[in-house]
């Protein structure tokens, strides 16, 4: 290493000042100082602390190559040489030591310095205060690098402190501590033992091995024992410490020498005894059950929720949390904190179980440790609810088990009281039920309000429409008046449509709108729609185009009225919002058929005013119209589209729309319908003139209107104003074997209402008359009752001509399906008929008629003769009696009554059929009163006679 000679340098630099008095002293010191192996320097003992001399060893200590570097580093003062943090402390120490007379001007300090490379070193400093001739007060100082020595001492101190800490900890016994053992691993002997649950082997002077062994025996798991012994072998522990692992711990479930079962944590901390250097192990044995459990608890539950927390191991339990004083009555807390688990279940739980709701044997099985273990093999928790009856009160307890250690069959049992929870739940349910009931009541009120309103509006509408149509019949009307009447009709019909819409909407909202699933003719409804729309378009000057694609079938299952309503709603809208010379196009397309289901698509396209795109999403909401003024101009309720969408959705169909302002709109409805085997429109289509219809209504205007509407369709109807009259008429027609096909009954009538009339008709007569209830009310609420009474269908009042035929046909079709199995008819051939007829010719014709079907006739010229013939015949000889009513000697009525009065079995049951030219109702009534079964009017229709006989005679 090359550096300047500090002495020479120094001497040169100080020559002027040094040379004054004692020029030889300094070189002498310098020479000596260079011989010293350690560092040596001199500095002025004044405030400047100016360095006077440093030897080359000092330069080495500071890592400087020459004096210049040292001067730059330290400023060549003592202050600059010491670490700034240490200076004040050591200066004070130096001053104090020097001031002390006994120290003979000597001082010793240690401090840090900062080397040139920035590293920090510790130095010791032996200083001596002196008065140097020519220099005044100075310190000459010997310093040496003591860094290594210093660090070693620090480490030694740390270890000593650690050991002292461990000793201190050892001497303090913690609450959960079972035993503390200090063992000298170097000697292998126990030095000290403390604690409340020490083993016999835990004695000072005993080997550690014995302690470990004594404990390992208590572990329940074989595996635990092995691991424990291995871990705490003295040699193993030493190895650990050399690997700088001063700790080892083990947690296991064990049986203590007292017999108590618990989790125990056995941990060991090792340290060297600072003086002897012996390896000392401090063993701490603590019970960690609650620690272990709180782990699970924190994870799974809120302790507060449970009235008991217990652990269950094998068949043993121990209560962890559960204070009889704090928990509610009926908590079935174990009487002992520890015990046999099944004893607790059998002695305390099962006896209080409420047997009306739970089976004790089942419960015992559910609560036994085997079941718990099995359940918890895969599940995180296992819950058993127990209903207890304690002191006459019912308590709901919930036993929830968690697995703490599945292999050790160590489970946690949390018992909670659910009584309040369940009660609250019950109360909540009751509240909900109440609220529901309230809501239902409100809904019923709303429905009945709407229903009543609809009736209140419809009743005067009946009069308006009825009287209006009567008035229009007057041929003497002026054109102007006729025009007014037409406008009245239009407005009235419109008002009715609004009422119907509102009712429909309320039905949809209350879920009462139901769809029929009946066979219907698609062709038929399309024809009706086309007829109607062609006329409407023509009137307005629009073109109308109808297109079918994909060959839809003629018949399907579904609700034709609702489908028609949907299509008409959209089509009418299109017409409404299209101005001439525009047009409406209606396309029907079969787009798919699968599994006897057919998907039909209906496209309604117009080139009308269209709608703004922003309005489209709201189109199907109730009470929305693009702008209110439009609604007025075009006149609508704003419900049509909402109803349309709802119906389509109920049919599981879809409806969509695209539209462009001033270009037009296109609606697409897609529905899937079940196929129907019916091939084509067969005999089901109704011939109106063949119908025999009875109309009953207490309101004369409604009655007349109904009759007129029917007449307009070619249907002749008998009209009556009360149920009683209707029943008589029906009875008479039955007797004449000319029953009504159709009975239209007003629902609300004074005395006997429509439903009651129906019930009586069904009781008295065969089921083949179709009965339709006419009402201006909504019939949703009476539907079930009415149908049970035998009502086939409902129609809204006032009757609308365009609906009548479809409704009638539908009702007949439905009825036709119902009565498919025809009445049992009997064979006519070989039957013997007693004919009472005074007129030869009639008798001859009748005989011929009967013989045509292979029947034999015995003829009597009058009632008396007939009676005699019957009296003298063998029992069951005659199969039927045909009785002319007007006869000389004894008329038919008397004869029939006389026959019925005969005391023989067949006199009661032989069918007697009245024959008379008088088909007046009074006559029919009289013959029925006389005991006759039927009444045929002359001239007798052969087929009519045959069917009557077929139906009346015994098989």
């Amino acid at each position, binding site marked *: 290493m090359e550096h300047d000679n500090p002495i020479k340098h120094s001497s040169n630099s100080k020559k002027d000042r040094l040379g004054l008095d004692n020029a030889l002293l300094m070189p002498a010191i310098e020479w000596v100082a260079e011989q010293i192996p350690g560092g040596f320097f001199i500095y002025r003992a004044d405030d400047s602390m100016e360095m006077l001399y440093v030897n080359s060893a000092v330069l080495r200590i500071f890592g400087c190559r020459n004096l210049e570097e040292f001067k730059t580093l330290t400023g060549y003062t003592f202050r600059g040489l010491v670490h700034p943090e240490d200076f004040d402390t050591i200066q004070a120490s130096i001053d104090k030591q020097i001031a002390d007379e006994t120290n003979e001007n000597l001082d010793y300090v240690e401090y840090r310095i900062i080397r040139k490379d920035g590293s920090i070193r510790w130095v010791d400093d032996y200083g001596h205060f002196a008065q140097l001739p020519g220099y005044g007060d100075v310190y000459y100082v010997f310093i040496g690098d003591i860094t290594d020595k210093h660090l070693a001492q620090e480490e030694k101190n740390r270890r000593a402190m650690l050991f002292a800490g461990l000793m201190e900890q050892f001497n303090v016994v913690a609450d959960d501590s079972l035993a503390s053992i200090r063992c000298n691993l170097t000697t292998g002997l126990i030095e000290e033992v403390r604690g409340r649950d020490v083993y016999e082997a835990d004695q000072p002077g005993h080997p550690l091995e014995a302690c470990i062994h004594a404990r390992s025996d208590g572990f329940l798991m074989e595996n635990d024992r092995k691991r424990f012994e291995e871990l705490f072998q003295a040699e193993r522990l030493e190895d650990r410490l050399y690997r700088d692992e001063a700790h080892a711990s083990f947690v296991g479930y064990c049986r203590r020498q007292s017999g108590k079962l618990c989790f125990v944590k056995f941990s060991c901390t090792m340290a060297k005894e600072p003086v002897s250097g012996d390896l000392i192990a401090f063993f701490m044995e603590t019970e960690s059950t609650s620690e272990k459990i709180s782990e699970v608890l924190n994870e799974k539950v809120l302790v507060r929720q449970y009235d008991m927390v217990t652990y269950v191991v094998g068949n043993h339990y121990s209560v962890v949390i559960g204070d009889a004083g704090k928990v509610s009555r009926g908590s079935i807390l174990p009487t002992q904190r520890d015990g046999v688990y099944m004893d607790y279940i059998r002695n305390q739980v099962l006896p209080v179980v409420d047997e009306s709701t739970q089976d004790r044997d089942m419960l015992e099985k559910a609560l036994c440790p085997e079941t718990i273990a099995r359940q918890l093999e895969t599940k995180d928790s296992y819950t058993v609810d127990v209903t207890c009856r304690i002191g006459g009160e019912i308590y709901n307890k919930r036993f929830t088990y968690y697995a703490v250690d599945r292999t050790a069959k160590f489970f946690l049992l949390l018992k909670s009281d659910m009584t309040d929870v369940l009660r609250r739940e019950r109360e909540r349910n009751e509240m909900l039920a109440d609220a529901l009931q309230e809501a239902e009541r409100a809904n019923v009120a709303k429905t009945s309000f709407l229903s009543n309103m609809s009736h209140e509006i419809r009743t005067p509408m009946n009069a308006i429409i009825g009287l209006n149509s009567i008035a229009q019949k007057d041929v003497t009307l002026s054109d102007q008046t006729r025009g007014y009447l037409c406008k009245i009709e239009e407005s009235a019909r419109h008002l009715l449509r609004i009422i119907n819409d509102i009712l429909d909407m309320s039905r949809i909202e209350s879920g009462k709108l139901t769809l029929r699933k009946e066979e219907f003719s698609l062709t038929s409804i399309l024809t009706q729609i086309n007829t109607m729309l062609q006329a409407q378009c023509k009137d307005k000057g629009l073109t109308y185009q109808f297109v079918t694609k994909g060959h839809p079938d003629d018949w399907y299952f579904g609700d034709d009225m609702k489908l028609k309503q949907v299509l008409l709603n959209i089509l009418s809208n299109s017409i409404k919002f299209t101005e001439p010379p525009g047009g409406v196009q209606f396309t029907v397309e079969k787009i798919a058929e699968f599994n006897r289901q057919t998907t039909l698509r209906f496209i309604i396209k117009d080139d009308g005013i269209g709608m703004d795109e922003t309005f489209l999403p709201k189109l199907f909401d109730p009470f929305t119209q693009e702008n209110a003024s439009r609604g007025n101009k075009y006149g609508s309720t704003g419900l049509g589209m909402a109803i349309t969408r709802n119906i389509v959705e109920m049919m599981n169909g879809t409806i969509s729309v695209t539209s462009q302002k001033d270009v037009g709109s296109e609606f697409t409805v897609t529905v899937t319908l079940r196929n129907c085997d019916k091939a084509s429109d067969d005999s089901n289509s109704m011939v109106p003139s063949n119908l025999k219809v009875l109309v009953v209504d207490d309101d004369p205007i409604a009655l007349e209107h109904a009759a007129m509407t029917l007449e307009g369709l070619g249907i002749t109807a008998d009209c009556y104003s009360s149920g009683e009259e209707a029943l008589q008429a029906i009875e008479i027609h039955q007797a004449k074997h000319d029953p009504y096909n159709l009975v239209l009954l007003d629902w609300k009538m004074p005395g006997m209402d429509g439903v009651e009339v129906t019930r009586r008709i069904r009781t008295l007569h065969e089921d083949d008359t179709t009965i339709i209830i006419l009402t201006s009310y909504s019939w949703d609420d009476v539907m079930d009752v009415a149908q049970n009474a035998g009502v086939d269908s409902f129609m809204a009042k006032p009757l609308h001509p365009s609906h009548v035929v479809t409704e009638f046909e539908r009702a007949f079709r439905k009825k036709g399906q119902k009565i498919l199995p025809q009445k049992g008819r009997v064979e006519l051939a070989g039957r013997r008929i007693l004919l009472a007829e*005074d*007129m*030869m*010719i*009639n008798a*001859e*014709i009748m005989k*011929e*008629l009967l013989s*045509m079907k292979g029947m034999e006739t015995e003829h009597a010229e009058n009632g008396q003769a007939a009676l005699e013939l019957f009296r003298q015949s063998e029992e069951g000889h005659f199969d039927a009696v045909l009785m*002319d009513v*007007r006869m*000389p000697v004894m008329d038919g009525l008397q004869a029939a009554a006389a026959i019925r009065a005969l005391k023989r079995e067949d006199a009661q049951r032989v069918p007697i059929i009245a024959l*008379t*030219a*008088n088909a007046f109702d009074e006559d029919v009534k009289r013959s029925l009163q006389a005991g006759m079964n039927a009444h045929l009017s*002359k*001239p*007798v229709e*052969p087929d009519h006679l045959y069917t009557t006989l077929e139906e009346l005679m015994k098989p």
Partner: protein
Amino acid sequence: MTIQELRDYGANVDEGLARCFGKEDFYLRMVGLLAKEPSFEKLQTALADGNLKEAFDAAHSLKGVLGNLALTPLFNPVNEMTELLRKETPMDYSSLLTTILQEKKRLFGN
């Protein structure tokens, strides 16, 4: 008597035949039986005696038969008389009776 003669007379032959199952001979036989029918005389006598009740019985019986055979020109006046007699309408029945007898005569001759 033939079917054509009956048709010319004004009888609804088709209806009458239908009631006799299309058997012409049976139909004609029945019409023939009517010629000897005592009810005509009974009606005459009863009316002469003023016994409206008995007259009604007779007219009523005739009405049934005539209806059966669809002899419309004879049926109509008989029917009219029957209804009048049913209500025992006090009136002069002679002209109506004359019509009936004339129609009978027209059908059967004397």
